[in-house]
């Protein structure tokens, strides 16, 4: 830079500052540009997050509403089986009620098209209603029954009415029937309780997230019950007792490496060891929980060690000074002080496990399961897997179900992380 090592010293200093000043503008411009890149990259992340969340919410909020049709169901004598009401032909009763409302539909094919506007779950709704309070013969029940998912999509505006008939799943005739319902105020969107109370289904209007929530709950319970004690024990040993030798180093290398192993590899392990070797039942929260435990263990161990490290040595020395054994020092002084930090780490690990999908696919948790699981060895789906399954389904109505399921899952994750943050704030101690 300094090319003027001339004889004239007094002017030399001025020249250098000139050179510096000349370059200054350019350098400041560069500085500004660099700063801009930084802001842009943060803004890009923020914009993407906003884009993702809005598109999920925009796609999914409508799933919390479900189109229902008010159907007057006349109960005539003999329709309900007196001796065993459960075995009455509820499907037939619903069909006759539909026919009654549309007296001009007579042709067989048209009738089938007409019935397809109503969900096959309508018969179950009627059944539950009849079983709860048996109606007298001659009475007319006024029921809000579920509409088919195509009707639902039409009412929510995902299916356009003004496109040519061949491009919609409902034909013009069916649209006219729906218009009749609309004119009579017999069709409206109501809060979708089915979504929060039932398990999976092939029919979008009958599919719900509750089965997956229960499955996730059992899986997380297994994961928590195993990984919390084991993780803490491992962390305590490595941090407080382990001698500095090759074996300890080997354990540490293993833990650090396991934290970075792709999650699907844990699924392969679960498939080969737990399912094929030990013969444990497929698709169950028990196996899922164990696999996720192995996966989250490194996270919990690493967080717990950090929490133990944060406890100052003076605590240990004081306890040793009054005659505690080493294990007593840890169990009655260090551990209680480190526990909040450990719990925070565990919650974060659990949140990770709750969102994990890939290893569970390997151990058969992708099966189509309608029943709501009632225990650790019942076949179950978990929330992320349910999202994956719905995302794969071709029906348009499953798009909004998927987004809604994502919102539920994100809700749980946010709650867990918020809990972790609150715990950290509340119990964090600075020494």
């Amino acid at each position, binding site marked *: 830079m300094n090319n003027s090592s001339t004889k004239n010293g007094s002017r030399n200093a001025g020249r250098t500052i000139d050179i510096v000043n000349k370059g200054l503008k350019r350098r400041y411009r560069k500085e500004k540009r660099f700063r801009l890149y930084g802001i842009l990259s943060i803004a890009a992340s923020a914009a993407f997050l906003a884009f993702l969340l809005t598109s999920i919410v925009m796609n999914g909020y409508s799933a919390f509403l479900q189109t229902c049709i008010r159907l007057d169901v006349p109960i005539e004598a003999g329709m309900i089986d007196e001796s065993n009401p459960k075995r009455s032909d509820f499907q037939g009763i619903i069909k006759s009620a539909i026919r009654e409302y549309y007296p001009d539909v007579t042709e067989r094919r048209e009738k089938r098209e007409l019935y397809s506007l109503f969900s096959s779950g309508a018969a179950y709704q009627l059944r539950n209603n009849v079983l709860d309070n048996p109606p007298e013969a001659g009475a007319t029940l006024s029921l809000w029954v579920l509409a088919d998912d195509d009707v639902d999509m039409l009412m929510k505006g995902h299916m356009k009415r003004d496109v040519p008939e061949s491009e919609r799943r409902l034909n013009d005739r069916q649209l006219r029937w729906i218009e009749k319902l609309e004119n009579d105020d017999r069709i409206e969107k109501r809060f979708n309780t089915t979504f929060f109370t039932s398990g999976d289904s092939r029919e979008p209007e009958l599919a719900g997230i509750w089965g997956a929530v229960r499955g996730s709950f059992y899986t997380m319970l297994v994961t928590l019950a195993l990984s919390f004690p084991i993780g803490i024990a491992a962390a305590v040993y490595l941090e407080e007792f382990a001698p500095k030798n090759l074996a300890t180093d080997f354990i540490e290398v293993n833990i650090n*490496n396991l934290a970075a192993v792709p999650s699907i590899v844990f699924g392969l392990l679960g498939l080969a060891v737990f399912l094929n070797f030990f013969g444990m039942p497929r698709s169950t929260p028990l196996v899922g929980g164990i696999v996720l435990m192995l996966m989250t263990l490194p996270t919990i161990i690493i967080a717990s060690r950090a929490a133990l490290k944060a406890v100052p040595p003076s605590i240990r020395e004081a306890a040793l000074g009054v005659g505690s054994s080493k294990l007593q020092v840890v169990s009655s002084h260090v551990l209680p002080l480190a526990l909040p930090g450990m719990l925070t780490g565990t919650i974060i690990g659990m949140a990770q496990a709750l969102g994990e999908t890939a290893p569970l696919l390997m151990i058969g948790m992708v099966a189509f399961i309608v029943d709501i699981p009632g225990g650790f060895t019942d076949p179950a789906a978990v929330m992320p897997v349910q999202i994956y399954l719905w995302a794969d389904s071709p029906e348009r109505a499953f798009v909004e179900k998927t987004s809604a399921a994502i919102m539920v899952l994100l809700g749980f994750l946010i709650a867990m992380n918020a809990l972790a943050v609150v715990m950290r704030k509340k119990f964090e101690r600075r020494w």
Partner: protein
Amino acid sequence: MSPLLLLLLLLVLSVAGYIMGQQKALGLARKTGGTRNLHSLPVYYGALTALWCCLPAFFMFLFWIAFEQSIITGLMAADLPEEALALPAARLNVLINDIQSLAGGNIVSGEVTPLMQKAASHYLSLKGIGQMITSVIVLVAAVTGMLLVHGRIRPDMRARNQVENAFMGLLVVCSTIAIFTTIGIVLSILYEAVRFFQQIPVTDFLFGLEWSPQMAIREDQVGSSGAFGAVPVFVGTILISAIAMFVAAPVGLLSAIYLSEYADRRLRAVAKPLLEILAGIPTVVYGFFAALVVAPLIRNSGAQIGLDVSSESALAAGLVMGIMIIPFVSSLSDDVINAVPQSLRDGAYSVGATRSETIKHVLVPAALPGIVGGLLLAVSRAIGETMIVVMAAGLSANMTANPLQAVTTVTVQIVTLLVGDQEFDSPKTLAAFALGLVLFIGTLFLNIIALTVVRKYRERYE
């Protein structure tokens, strides 16, 4: 007795053992004049009794749980009539599965024959006998252990040391689980992969250029020649990971630099949680987003400028994966940049460098090993990422470097090969484990390099 009930009973017995041990110690203390004459505090005598009560019994229980299924199935299969045992192995397996589901009250794949009925009831009775024997053995072991220790409690018994040794052992066992997990991963994947390589030569797998793992069900089927050349799969993996890193590396690094060098506390208080949220979103959500929003977006904008973009383009999956990795890169680089001593910055400022010059010429070179290590970890993350590519990338193994075409990755292939019906003797299923082996070794290699580099780097400035 059901396993859960047995465990509960074991717990109750242990509590009883604890109380008994403690009471006996207290009694001894009273006789000899105060607890100070005991070697240990009374709780340790209780704890020792409880430990002897539950630990041996619990291990027996675990052993049984682990092998129950295989032992009982083996016994039941051995007792099947001749005509069933003469069936081919695959049919026999189906039969055994059917019998088990029949016994469990589940749906059976075929018709229920009297043979199956009989076998199922035999299975159930075997299971009952097994459970009974276990319950008896476990409970006897528990009570014996408890009484044995209880009888030996003396004032000079070193109860505390024994309890502490037991706990120490427990801690050691817990900390070695990581090792066992690694060994389990290696052995299980290696075992199946070796079986695969017995059928398909290693060189064909590693260097073959065609991947179509469909195996024929019938001999004469069209397109029945399964080809297991994995190079196109590797190429696809590398392509998608490269796109992801192309997004994540600059954005992640620049955000980390900005946040640690420029941002004031308010911006940091907003931006850091924001990145954490991005990191906390499950990958299945990213996958859904990539398939539903990003891929159509890219395809439509490509169509507008006259480009033919596949609807499962590598670009869509790679872009979204890159965004997923941004927080990972940025938090790792953040740690690394913060570890650079302040004196280096001050030195640069003092000779008149601007902030960006300090960063470019001093900070980044100083932090380079750490940054490279972090990027390597991110690459390993990208290679192992599954859900985004399963949902947004394709299945066909094209060998191309064109990001607008569909490619497939190692993880996608593992998932497609293993989800659904599995036969553990066809190369199709075993190929997944061979791919898994490559994935594991590849990421292991990257991780070890990265972790060593990062550790060395940290030690330099500590």
